[in-house]
């Protein structure tokens, strides 16, 4: 009734039972296949291991071994951002929170807030894809450990700044990817791509001061205001 492929051996075939030949065949097979498997494992004693000894026993930082296309923690070059809000709109999780207003004195548009909640971000890359000016992009940074949840919200605008009005051709050169981010939170600041990287340099690298809660005038409020968009969208789930 169903398109069945005829099996190579009859499905009613049972392994020969009770015969002397089957008995010794079992012994032979068990020993010889175990022998075969052991020769494979033994050959691995002479093969190069695959493991990369993160973080210290490697030739260069892991970040530099990653391909250019790697989707790490997001970073915004505010010199190139035109506050078109495309990224905020496309983000499925609402982890990007941008606020802008018109400066009453100069009459220019000013961006007052550009927050990315990397605790909410799922690194899908839709925002970077939609950014026309290459202002928002994924870096190759992945060591994003912080101690409290609110430190996971990266504030890319410290004080209100004018929105750039330049055309794409006149845009300032994009800063080195990751260089903005490394100043943001302590975990990133530990490593500098230009330095010759050794385990000692790793330990001796100065740890920049923590910025997020102290530098911002009101630490609790931005958290609360950063989240309304997140509150409407479903609870973020990490990939298991």
């Amino acid at each position: 009734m169903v398109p069945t492929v005829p099996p190579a051996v009859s499905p009613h075939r049972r392994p020969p039972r009770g015969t002397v030949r089957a008995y010794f065949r079992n012994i032979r097979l068990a020993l010889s296949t175990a022998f075969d498997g052991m020769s494979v494992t033994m050959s691995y004693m002479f093969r190069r291991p695959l493991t990369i000894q993160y973080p210290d026993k490697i030739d260069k930082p892991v970040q530099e071994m990653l391909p250019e296309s790697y989707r790490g923690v997001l970073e915004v070059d505010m010199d190139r951002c035109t506050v078109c809000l495309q990224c905020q709109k496309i983000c499925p999780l609402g982890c990007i929170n941008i606020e802008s207003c018109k400066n009453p004195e100069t009459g220019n548009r000013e961006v007052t807030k550009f927050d990315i909640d990397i605790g909410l971000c799922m690194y899908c890359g839709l925002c970077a894809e939609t950014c026309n000016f290459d202002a928002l992009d994924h870096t190759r940074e992945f060591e994003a450990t912080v101690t409290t949840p609110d430190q996971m919200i990266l504030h890319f605008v410290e004080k209100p700044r004018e929105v750039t009005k330049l055309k794409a051709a006149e845009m300032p050169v994009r800063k080195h990817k990751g260089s903005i981010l490394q100043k943001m939170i302590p975990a990133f600041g530990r490593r500098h791509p230009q330095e010759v990287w050794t385990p000692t340099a790793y330990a001796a690298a100065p740890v920049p001061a923590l910025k997020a809660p102290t530098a911002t005038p009101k630490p609790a409020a931005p958290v609360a205001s950063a989240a309304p968009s997140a509150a409407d969208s479903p609870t973020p789930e990490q990939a298991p």
Partner: protein
Amino acid sequence: MNIMHYLADLLVRSLFKADPATWPYTWIAYAVVIGVGALLAFAFVAIFAGPVTWIERRIAGRIQSRIGPNRNGPQGCLQWLADGIKCWLKEDLVPATADKPLYLAAPYLVFTGMFGAFVVLPFGAHVIAADLNVGLLYILAVTSLVVVGLLMAGWGSNSKWALFGGVRSAAQLVSYEVPSAFSLMAVVLMAGTLSTQGIVGAQGGWPWQWFVFRNPFLFAAFIMYFISAIAEGNRTPFDLPEAESEIIAGYNIEYSGMRFLFFLFAEWANMWIMAAVATLAFLGGWQIPGISPERIAEAKGWTFVGWQALSFAIFVFKGTCLVFTIIQIRWTLPRLRVDQLMITCWKYLVPLSMGSATGVLLLMALVREGGIVDWVMRGAMLLVGLLVAGAYIRKVRATFMADRDNYKKMEGRDLWYPPYRLP
């Protein structure tokens, strides 16, 4: 003459200026012998079982294309110490519903069973705690305490998974004692004694003097003993009592801290015991090639100590090779199912080991030792052993060569990375 007794006598003579054969100095000497012997054996267990965990993890790492622990101490060789101290400092949790006395006692019983076997292991020509007349039987008897301990742990934890582990373990150990006893019986028949030193003494230093290459039945008995030893030590492919993917971890699942460590300790110690018994029964024990035991016994002073050290090294080397094989098997083979485990034991190992014992008996009756047939048999078995080793080396090389060029093309570096190069 036991080296320990010799030292104890010396002690009594120099310290008390008394004849060690008079009361109470005999007992002082005995107490010293027992105490120091136990301490040394314990030290050996600790020093062996500890680093062997590290060695096993490094070997497993290599086999699995990773590195293994290499951070604590040079090349991570102190990892076992760190783990041990960590376990020691951990809280000793007792489940609220556990059967407390049984739960608390079980690890010690398991450990006692393992540790007791060390008494009769002949580490060297005269390095043995007590050369009992019933040495091999003693090992079999004492390890049965382990079974009780495991059942106790399984029951006392009041966890169904632990009970599974305990019952599986007990069933397995009780079953596999039969083929291992029969395989050892073949050796006992050849040696004519149960004493471990006697069995070693019945062999010689050269491979053709070892029992394993004496005749085909003993060769088979060696393989069967090795298999049942792995089973008795709860090692893969017979590690059902601690099958983490089936019953999570078995009898030790509820234990923590030092009590948990005792189980692991016992497991690794047991691995050594099994390897040591296989060495002494089949692989010539501590026998030094070309040096007869009499010459060692007659030696005096530093020569005597030197021979002892050499024989100790030989014994430990042989045992470690077997331990390495057990480790390699553990990281190669999958696990049997419970019914298959019993089938392997009762349908295959028990009859075959009985057969091998009978075969040895027949050959003893028919073939004169040292005669031409005997030597032909020894030569043939040695040849078989060499052929197997040769085939193994060829296979390993072919496996390596299959990937070498492609790997070079893909990664731009050599695949060759010998074991002595440690990352």
